[in-house]
Each structure stands twice: as C-alpha cells, then as structure tokens.
C-alpha cells in the first residue's frame, strides 16, 4: 500500500485497498517473487491502522485536509485479507488477534454459518473467510467448540444440491464449489460431499472455450472469476493434473511451498 510513500505526483492514484493488497501479494507469490521489494513495515503498519474497535478490518482509510474518515466497510472479507497479509509478511504483532477472533466468533449465526459481521445472515463466502482466517491463525479449536464445528459442517454439507449454493434456497453457483468446498476441507469434512454430483455441476457450467460461468444456463457467459473458482473446485477434488490447492491461503501447494521457504528466512517483529 503506497500510504507511507504518498507524494504530490501520486496522490491522484486510487486509494490503497486491502483486497487489492491481498491479491497483489498472492500474485507475486504465484509468479515466484521473493517479496523483497515490498515495504514490509510500511504495509504492516497501514494494516494495523485498518483494524476497527470491534476487531474487524475496513478496506481502506484516507486522510485529506485534516478530515479523517475511515470507511466503515469493515467485514469478514477484509478480516480474511488482513490475516493472509499478516501471515505472508510474518507480521501478526501488528494486529490484535484476540479482538479479531472475537469478531469472527460473534459473527457465527444461529444456523451454523458466518455472516459478514455480527447479526448478519450466514453466507458461503463469509463462512470461508472466517474459517480460513481461524485456520491460518491456528485458532480453530480455540474459538470454535465441537458443537459449533458440527453445526458449521452440517450447514455447509446442506448447501450441496448438485453443485453448491451460497445460502439456503438460493441457486447453485460455480464459485460456491470453492467457498463451501474449502470451508469443508478446513474442517476435514470435504470427504462427505458427493464428488460426482459436484463434477457434473462443474461440467455443466464449463463453456466450450474452457471458461466457467456462474450458472449452468446457456445464456450465462463464462467469466474470469468463476473460471478461477471452477478450476480451484476441481483442484480440491484432485482432478487431472491440477496442482493441489491450499484451502485457506487460496494458492496452489507449489506457491505455498515458496511462501514457507521465504518465511523461514524472514523474522517476525
């Protein structure tokens, strides 16, 4: 995030955004970069500033003309981005992990799924973000009771119709084979899904030029996002020659290895 390096001639750039930062770091890892050119301290300091009082993270903040406003858009998506960023850069000391875990726990709904925040309706995407965050922090067993995990597993398993839906009574969508699939992997319950039915669904959303669409209907076009999730969903099932997928970090096992090697040489502070 260029926050600390902002000068007159770059002030017209987009405000740095947590999700973009998350993507940028992952892309660098995937491409084999060693991250040595990242302003690690600057980025982690900026990250710490984005944590809200309730433990969640906002997407960005801005100071202009002595008027400070930090955007309230704090939710589970950015909690996840923050955890991954802190993990990659070995910077857990820059964020309040206990507060973050409290936010996640408070976002568990009555039916065993996580909403974007406390009181909010449970959703496949935010469920992934919550579980992946806890897994990366190695706090799954500390924050979730056995009963919680049982409820969450059941909720996730019941999202499968053939493919997966993101919430009860909604349509199946390719990307939930990823969000829910990874959630189940994290809770060691992916083995209970019906893999054949999942594959059938994914074959129906794959288009003739190779990309994946959101829905199976013919008029639904393929797009990059769903193509990515479709391939990841197949990787989860160890299909063909795809690299394995790290279900919490959202990168291949190959890229995860690179990260591990890099972390061995970086010291936390």
């Amino acid at each position, binding site marked *: 995030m260029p926050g600390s390096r902002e000068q007159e001639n770059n*002030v*017209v750039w*987009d*405000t740095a*955004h947590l999700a973009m930062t998350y993507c940028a770091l992952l892309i660098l890892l995937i491409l084999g970069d060693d991250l040595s050119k990242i302003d690690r301290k600057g980025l982690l300091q900026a990250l710490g500033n984005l944590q809200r009082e309730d433990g969640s993270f906002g*997407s960005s903040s*801005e100071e*202009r*003309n002595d*008027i400070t*406003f930090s*955007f*309230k*858009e704090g939710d589970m998506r950015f909690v996840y981005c923050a955890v991954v960023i802190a993990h990659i850069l070995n910077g857990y000391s820059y964020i309040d992990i206990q507060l973050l875990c409290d936010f996640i726990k408070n976002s568990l*709904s*009555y*039916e065993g799924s996580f*909403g*974007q925040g406390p*009181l*909010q*309706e*449970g*959703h496949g995407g935010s469920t992934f973000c919550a579980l992946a965050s806890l897994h990366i922090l190695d706090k799954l067993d500390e924050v979730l009771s056995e009963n919680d995990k049982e409820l969450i*597993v*059941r*909720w996730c*398993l*019941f999202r*499968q*119709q053939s493919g997966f839906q993101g*919430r*009860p*009574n*909604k349509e199946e969508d390719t990307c939930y084979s990823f969000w829910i699939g990874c959630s189940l992997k994290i809770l060691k*319950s992916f*083995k*209970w*899904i*019906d893999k054949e*039915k999942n594959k059938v669904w994914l074959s129906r959303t794959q288009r003739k030029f190779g990309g994946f669409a959101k829905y199976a209907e013919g008029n639904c076009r393929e797009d990059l996002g769903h193509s990515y999730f479709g391939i990841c969903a197949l990787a989860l099932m160890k299909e063909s020659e795809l690299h394995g997928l790290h279900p919490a970090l959202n990168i291949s096992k190959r890229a995860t290895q690179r990260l591990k090697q890099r972390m061995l040489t970086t010291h936390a502070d």
Partner: protein
Amino acid sequence: MHGRIKVRTTEEQNLQKHKEQQKKLTAYRMGMKQILATRDADSYNKDSLALSAQLLTINPDIYTLWNYRKEVVLIEIKKSYQDEVADDQKLIHFFEEELRLTEQCLLSNPKSYGSWHHRYWILNHHTKPNWQREFDLCNKYVSLDDRNFHCWDFRRLIVNKIGISLADEIAFSTERININFSNYSSWHYRSTLQILNDENSVANDLILVQNAVFTDPIDTSAWFYLRWVLSHPGITKIQKEDLLNALEQLQELEPECKWIIMAKCWLVKQGNLEKDAICRLKRYYTELIKLDPLREGHYKDCFKVF
C-alpha cells in the same frame, strides 16, 4: 442482394459487440482520467462530479468514484461551516442529490456494497436526515427481494435512529414470516432479536416455527430455526414429546421428507440415550441415507458416534 433483410452473422454480431465494449471502455478510461486529474483539496470540478454520477449509474461498484464523491461532500460541508450566512438549504440539497444518486444505482443494482455504504455514510453526515423515509425505502426493497441481505443490514443500522422498539421489530418479523414461511432472511433476522429470553417467548416461537414446518415441510427455512429453538434449555420434556408425536403424524403424510426425520434425530439425541434411542437413531439414519443419498457419507459419520 435486393429485397433481403440483412441478418447479421454471429461473427458480425461479435464484432459489433466488441466495438460497443471498446467504446464503453474508452469512455470509462477517459472519464476516470478526467475525474482523478481534477481532484483537489479545497475545491471540486462540477463537470467531474456529474461525470462520476454517469459512470456510477452504469457501474456502481467503482468504489473509487464513491470515495471521490465523499471527498466532494466533505468539501461542501467545510464550505458551509465557513460561510457566514447560516443557511444549510444548499447543503441539504447537496445531500439529497447524493441520496437520489444512490437510489438510482440501487434500482438497477440493489446489491452493490458501494451504493448502500455511500447512502448510509451520507445519512450520517446529513444535517436533517429523514430516517423514516429510509425505513420505508428498506421495506420497499425487502418486498422486492426478501433475500437481499444488504437491505436487512441497512434496516438493522437505522432502526436505532428512529427509535423502533424491540417489540416493534419482533412484530415486524412475525408479520414477514406469516406472509411467507419460506423467508429465510426473515427467520435469520428473528434469530438476532434476542427473542428467546424466557419460557413464554420460547413456547411462542416453538408454536410459530412448528406452524411453518407443518404448513410447508419441504421448505428448509423453518427447520433450521426449529433446531435452534429446540437447543434452548427452556424447552420442556413435554414439549419435546408432543413435537415428536406430531412429527410422526406428519411423516405419514410426507414420507419422503428428510427434514422430518432429521428433526426426530435432533429430539431423540437430546433425550437420554437409552438402548431404544440408539435403535431409533439407526433406523432414522438408514432412512435418511435412502432419502438423501447426496449426504450418505455425512449420515454414516453421524451414526458412527453411537
């Protein structure tokens, strides 16, 4: 050839589409360039502001432009404090224009995070916000799509602003559920109202959700809520036994409904696990595997514990 209607081939159509997309892309790029070039600390360019409204109407997810508009609003607020004449009409008009823009964007895309967030941000800076109108807007959007969680979340944010009581919200929740038992988001909203705080309310909610599952046992919405109500320590043994008997009768009418059997599992598991209970559970899980083969592995895993 003369007299023949020109029918575009697929290739021509694709080319046409590509040309249109390129036009849109050029307009977007030029628009963004102009807007960002005219950003200034103390003033703003009215043409850029208008341009940002045009771009957001087409794509309300360009959060950079919502942020730009927030900067402009802050400039206007600052100017208004500095003006000697205390007349906030101009400022109010400005806020109302922002609200109108978000409403326009929400009409075409009711799920844009940026639009909902900007609206709430404007209301929090508005010198005379009309919270009642916001409340009515919320109700309108909930009727259009009762699964739109942005709308439910917005409602949750503003109920405190207009002094809606918990009792009012419980009544609203009951009303929505009675309109449509299959309203998942309504059940969720109800679960957040801290409703199960005494034996009376537990008993009332048990009746409400029982009605729902018996009216439409195929729909999943109410079953999860039932499970949650049953997990409350205030549920009595008699209530559980009565429910179990009622479920047995319902199963005769709906033998293919897996939810009924699952509810029986929940009830039996909660009681003492005598030998009889384990036999029953074995029977239930065997039936569930037949009715719901998609989750065979899960049911076998559930039963392994016994």
